[in-house]
């Protein structure tokens, strides 16, 4: 028992493997990006830029204007966040600050269930049950419009927004609450004037992560937004069909010839998506890292 048995080759091997695996996650991100570049960059050479950033996407006629797709994604993402943010933050405040225990015990698993529902199931539900309601309520000719997509997306990003906002509220020191109450404020005033403002950087993170989730969503959006690649301008744009970047890739990639201009154009959209989500996540991550540094410990 005096000596370490042999040289531990097995142990050395497994520790090296673990290190390699750790580093490989960075490798994956890089490989994914390189692949998108490899397949997407030719599009920028083959299609002139006026066309590529134009307003018309009709691949069969050689028109690859990505602008309507980008705006389509932006329209429903922003609408979704406008719906989801107040709902999500209010729910988080309710869960953390107000709800009696039994309500919390019901709410938390319900929200987890929502997070677990596959997007294709939500899309199916949206097209069969939500779209008809939207059509009748707003008197539109079809229910498969941007607004329906935004509604579904709002619910898809709710679990993310709620859980990040909850963490943010959790991080507000109890002292703040006590100080508010001690000054004679009601519980509501304390929540509204002290706790929520103190958590706002965390709530901002929640918004960004929710947006990242929403902009990348594919199946549900493709199934409920009607998929018309038109510029979503004008006041009624929300109640007309619209098409997103994600839906375009998903719908068309299956039918293009590998290596064609259209194929590269779809990868180019992939690059745009990757860059947008990368930036959003970078921004969200930097607020999280900053918070962690301030928090000390680990």
């Amino acid at each position: 028992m005096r000596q370490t048995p042999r040289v531990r080759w097995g142990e050395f091997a497994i520790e090296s493997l673990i290190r390699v695996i750790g580093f490989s996650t960075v490798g994956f991100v890089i490989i994914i990006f390189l692949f998108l570049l490899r397949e997407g960059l030719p599009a920028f050479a083959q299609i002139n830029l006026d066309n590529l950033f134009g307003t018309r996407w009709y691949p069969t006629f050689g028109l690859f204007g990505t602008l309507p797709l980008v705006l389509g994604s932006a329209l429903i993402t922003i609408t979704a966040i406008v719906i989801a943010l107040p709902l999500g933050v209010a729910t988080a405040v309710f869960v953390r600050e107000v709800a009696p225990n039994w309500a919390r015990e019901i709410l938390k698993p319900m929200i987890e269930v929502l997070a677990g529902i596959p997007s294709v199931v939500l899309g199916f539900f949206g097209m069969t049950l939500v779209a008809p309601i939207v059509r009748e309520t707003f008197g539109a000719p079809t229910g498969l419009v941007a607004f329906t997509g935004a509604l579904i997306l709002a619910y898809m990003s709710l679990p993310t927004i709620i859980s990040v906002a909850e963490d943010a509220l959790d991080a507000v020191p109890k002292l703040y609450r006590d100080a508010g109450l001690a000054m004679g404020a009601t519980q509501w005033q304390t929540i509204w004037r002290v706790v929520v403002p103190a958590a706002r950087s965390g709530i901002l993170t929640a918004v960004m992560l929710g947006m990242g989730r929403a902009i990348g969503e594919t199946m549900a959006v493709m199934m409920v937004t009607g998929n018309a690649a038109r510029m979503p301008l004008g006041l009624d744009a929300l109640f007309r069909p619209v098409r997103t970047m994600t839906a375009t890739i998903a719908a068309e990639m299956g039918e293009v010839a590998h290596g064609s201009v259209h194929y590269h154009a779809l990868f180019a959209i992939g690059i745009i998506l990757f860059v947008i989500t990368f930036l959003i996540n970078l921004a969200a991550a930097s607020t999280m890292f900053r918070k962690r540094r301030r928090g000390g410990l680990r």
Partner: protein
Amino acid sequence: MRNRFVAQRVGFALLTLAALVVVIPILTIVATIFIRGAAAINWEFLTAMPRDGMRAGGIFPAIVGTIVLTLGTAIVAIPLGVGGAIYLSEYARDTWLTRSIRLAIINLAGIPSVVYGLFGLGLFVLLMGFGTSIVAGSLTLAIMTLPVIISTAEEALRAVPTEFRTVSASLGGTRWQGIRYIVLPQALPGIITGVILGLLRAAGETAPILFTVAAFYLPRLPRSPLDQTMALPYHLYVVSTQVPGMPAKIQFGTALVLLALVLSLNIGATMIRSYFRRRRQW
């Protein structure tokens, strides 16, 4: 004085309303799909091949396909994910490299699923020559699942008190022995939870398999890992948008099977977590 309490009452009412607006649609979705889907569920639906251009018969190959894809994903994602988590929790020091790994994981988690599909198509299907196949689809899903597994498993590993590692070292244990005999067994329930959460995400995803493995209509079981297969999420997409005259019963039935599969995994993960949390000794 009165006004402040009126404001409080109104405020709390609004918060409660918001929570209801969140919860009621969730209940509606689950209840609708369970009620309307239940009518379609019978032995034939679960175990037979689809017939009549999928308008009749069952969804057996889609169920099998999803199970096979999930298992394939597990084979690749579990060692990579748990290994990565062990690295981050037990080996990594706070360097720029570690920070870039964390950043990479956050970004992997944020990449849209359809972009994973593009990547899988470019690398696994075309460049590596796997074709549209179970291998290509599983690899794509595995990389997508990785960040979920890594972050939950890392959290579970970090929850094991540092003192156990110190004690193990003080008894002549190498770092790996401490991990192998003390830390991993203690973190196992949390790791399992993370793995299930990651895999259920993979099981329910459609976009990454669209161009890497999914078959539109293939009324037989896959014969090899290089074969295509049907899968439940894609099948639901197909029967609800691509085939005219599809009976609603089949659509809701497919949705129900998929939802039940995913939710039961979800509930299983939650139960494992709370059971072990209660039993934990520290």
